[in-house]
């Protein structure tokens, strides 16, 4: 069926390195060159005179008329669709290939279509994989609880996630393409710019929150917000891009302030109590001692971190009493750790080696059946007992 083509044409087509088809206007195949037979697995004799639909197959749900498209493309060889639309080729063993085609009209008046085909299956799959990976990563960044802002080499904003919108009070579409400076207070811009320049030149690819000082952001309402940031740079084709994960540190600072205040209040109450109070962990180690307890123990004795029953105030008059007093104390702490409230009269030796009679209690602090701490409290009743 290659009769309409002259011998020299055929030699030329056969030698073309691209897979090439010649198709008549009725959609029948006139010729396949060697590269095409290698690509599709069919040979020329097998396909000559067959409809092109044997090798270029519309997909399920497609209403594609291949011949009509060959005519369109032949009429407009510079058509942008030639870049984006692919045909699906089927090889002899049933494998499907994505084919990017170029079409030329070969002869007038009888139109023949010269179709060159390039297998773009792997290319298209890679392209899709990259797109899908990009989509997944972008969605991860989009919902991050940190504000994320990306910059190009000119320090213009290229990415602005939802948290950044909330933090700065700007919508992404209003900041994309605009300079970073709009997110910085006027008096910080020069210094911040110098920091980015230094980071660009520096050896470190990333700096994490906590490794650098705080920075200050500017909201759309003109409010200055202290921020901490992790930053990273990626050079693409020699041009830097920057990404910052930003966190508003006001809530953390407020929590720290409240914690310090709460601790100070606790300490004030704790130290002003008349009774000696020790706070123990559930294993009996001393966490805190108030002023009265410290006085009772002796000002220079360090109690924190030691087992309650190992404190020097259990020293009895003799070796045996001392051992017994300690055993009793340990036993009592262990019972309190199990949830029991213990109250007893104990004899201690204070920091000045005076014997003291103490109205002593151990109370567990419990939540959900678990002991968090034990409060040891002692009231010095030596004077009262002495009067008795």
């Amino acid at each position: 069926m290659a009769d309409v083509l002259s011998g020299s044409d055929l030699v030329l087509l056969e030698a073309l390195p691209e897979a090439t088809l010649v198709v008549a206007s009725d959609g029948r195949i006139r010729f396949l060159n060697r590269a095409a037979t290698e690509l599709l697995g069919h040979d020329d004799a097998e396909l000559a005179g067959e409809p092109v639909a044997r090798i270029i197959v519309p997909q399920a749900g497609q209403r594609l008329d291949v011949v009509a498209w060959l005519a369109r493309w032949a009429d407009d060889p510079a058509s942008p669709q030639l870049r984006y639309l692919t045909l699906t080729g089927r090889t002899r063993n049933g494998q499907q290939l994505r084919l990017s085609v170029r079409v030329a009209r070969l002869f007038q008046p009888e139109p023949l279509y010269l179709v060159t085909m390039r297998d773009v299956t792997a290319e298209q799959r890679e392209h899709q994989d990259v797109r899908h990976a990009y989509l997944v990563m972008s969605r991860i960044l989009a919902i991050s609880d940190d504000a994320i802002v990306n910059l190009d080499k000119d320090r213009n904003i290229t990415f602005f996630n939802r948290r950044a919108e909330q933090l700065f009070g700007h919508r992404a579409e209003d900041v994309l393409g605009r300079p970073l400076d709009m997110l910085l207070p006027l008096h910080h811009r020069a210094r911040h710019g110098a920091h980015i320049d230094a980071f660009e030149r520096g050896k470190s690819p990333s700096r994490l929150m906590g490794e650098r000082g705080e920075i200050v952001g500017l909201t759309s309402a003109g409010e200055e917000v202290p921020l901490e940031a992790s930053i990273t740079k990626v050079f693409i084709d020699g041009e830097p891009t920057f990404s910052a994960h930003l966190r508003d540190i006001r809530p953390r600072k407020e929590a720290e302030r409240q914690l310090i205040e709460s601790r100070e209040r606790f300490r004030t109450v704790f130290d002003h109590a008349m009774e000696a109070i020790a706070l123990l962990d559930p294993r009996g180690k001393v966490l805190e001692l108030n002023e009265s307890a410290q006085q009772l123990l002796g000002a220079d004795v360090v109690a924190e971190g030691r087992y309650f029953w190992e404190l020097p105030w259990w020293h009895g008059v003799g070796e045996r009493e001392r051992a017994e007093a300690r055993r009793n104390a340990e036993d009592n702490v262990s019972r309190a750790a199990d949830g029991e409230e213990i109250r007893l009269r104990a004899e201690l030796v204070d920091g000045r080696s005076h014997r003291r009679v103490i109205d002593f209690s151990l109370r567990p602090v419990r939540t959900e059946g678990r002991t968090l701490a034990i409060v040891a409290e002692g009231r010095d009743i030596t004077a009262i007992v002495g009067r008795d």
Partner: protein
Amino acid sequence: MPRVTYVEANGTEHVVNVPVGSTVMQGAVNNLVPGIEGDCGGLCACATCHVYIPSEWAKRCGEPDELETNILDFAFDVRPESRLACQITMSEALDGLVVRMPVRQY
């Protein structure tokens, strides 16, 4: 700003604000809505932003021109309500638009 609800083939819905003058395809791509690819960037040259427009919205979205109708030849599972999202320009009249995505674009 008009809102568009993009419904993936599996039923997942993405409600997105799309600026007037932008296209339904750009709204999806800019907001990381999966299921609309927009390979050619809106040239009406790739058929990878194929969507279905419910009949109640069809009129307000306008009729596809010849090029769009031709390009839809390359889309999969084409139905009477098929459109290319890059050819639908957002206007206030399209506030509340619902578009459904096919199972595949390639």
